[in-house]
């Protein structure tokens, strides 16, 4: 009797192992030994203009007259123009200057300071010192949730898989411009809560990682917007990442009445 029961349990276990559900999960996960080595400390190449390929005007994102040209719908072009006009009178504070919200995606691929890209079979992490910020891309075979099961967050939800040495992931569930606290850079670029981003990330050489994004957003864009960001690996071995307490020594608070970013002098009072 006992042998018969054991035999049945073994048979059940084997049939479960090869059920469609479990097979799909296991087939999608790339073993650790087959994953690329993205270890080390990385930094984004170029300044914090999100899409340098469409930049007009010279300088960085905070410089007057600089803008990018995403294929915005008239409604979002109008919003962007409003942000640019405020930036040009120094009244467009960066949402993260208040030290309270994550930068979200895709801006997490547009930050200064150090990066770590953590590759595991079941998950991929983007860890940024600036912020700090974390993004998770699940590579364990799961599917993206249904739209009604997302509610708009800064980083959204991301599911990916490996195609050889390239990580491909899709991101949905972004809050976009809904609460006016998620931007792509300091020129005031935004997306809507309808954005869907497909990212392909790979090493283009030993010291360079490249992330190619195709941004689709039926509310904000008239056609897909292609943006590429690159990251260079530090050649110095043994460098550390540190914590980054934005509020630790905050001498640049935003004046909520005017939107002006203040500079605090030696006595703690604004000097600008």
């Amino acid at each position, binding site marked *: 009797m006992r042998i018969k029961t054991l035999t049945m349990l073994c048979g059940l276990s084997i049939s479960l192992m090869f059920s469609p559900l479990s097979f799909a999960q296991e087939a999608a996960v790339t073993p650790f030994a087959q994953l690329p080595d993205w270890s080390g400390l990385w930094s984004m190449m170029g*300044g*914090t203009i999100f899409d340098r390929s469409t930049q007009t005007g010279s*300088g*960085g994102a*905070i*410089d007057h007259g600089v803008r990018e040209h995403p294929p915005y719908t008239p409604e979002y072009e109008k919003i962007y123009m409003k942000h640019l006009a405020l930036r040009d009178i*120094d009244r*467009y*504070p*960066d949402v*993260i*200057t208040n*030290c309270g919200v994550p930068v979200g995606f895709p801006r997490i691929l547009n930050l*200064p*300071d*150090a990066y770590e890209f953590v590759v595991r079979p079941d998950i991929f992490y983007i860890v940024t*010192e*600036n912020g700090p910020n974390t993004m998770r891309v699940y590579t364990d075979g799961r599917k993206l949730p249904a739209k009604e099961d997302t509610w708009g967050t800064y980083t959204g939800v991301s599911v990916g898989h490996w195609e050889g040495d390239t990580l491909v992931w899709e991101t949905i569930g972004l809050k976009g411009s809904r609460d006016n606290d998620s931007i792509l850079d*300091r020129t005031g670029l935004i997306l809507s809560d309808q954005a869907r981003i497909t990212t392909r990330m790979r090493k283009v050489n030993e010291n360079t990682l490249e992330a190619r994004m195709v941004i689709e957003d039926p509310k904000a864009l008239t056609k897909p917007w292609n943006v590429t960001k690159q990251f260079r690996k*530090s050649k*110095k071995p043994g*460098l*550390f*990442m*540190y*914590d*980054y*307490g*934005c509020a*630790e*020594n*905050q*001498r*640049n608070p935003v004046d909520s009445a005017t939107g*002006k*970013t203040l*500079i*605090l*002098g*030696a006595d703690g009072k604004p*000097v*600008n």
Partner: protein
Amino acid sequence: MKSIHRVVFAAVAITFASIAIQPVLAHHSGAGFSRETIQLSGTVKEFQFRNPHSWIQVNVPDPSGKTVEWSIEWGSPNQLGREGIRPSSFTPGMSITMKVHPMANGSPVGGFVGAKMSDGKTIGKWDAE
């Protein structure tokens, strides 16, 4: 001898300093800082080696002999730390000459460019501007 050398390099050193300023201003808008470079000589009061930006507090005698405390903003200690800067790089009482981008409105605040110690050692982009 004047211990403050507010040498405005108007003709020779009004530099296009936005590139130099960018790392300093990673956290906030650059509004307010001039693009000109001046030199200040004084005594370090405090080095605030803390995020999001480091600040060097320096007591600088002005031409009338009155001491003015300047606040000089620099980069994130994380980034500076990886480049070899330490909290001990500026210690209280240290005599120092600094190159800074001052506030355009004349306030004693500026963006750090470089510094030269009394022993001739330099830090930052002293030779660049």
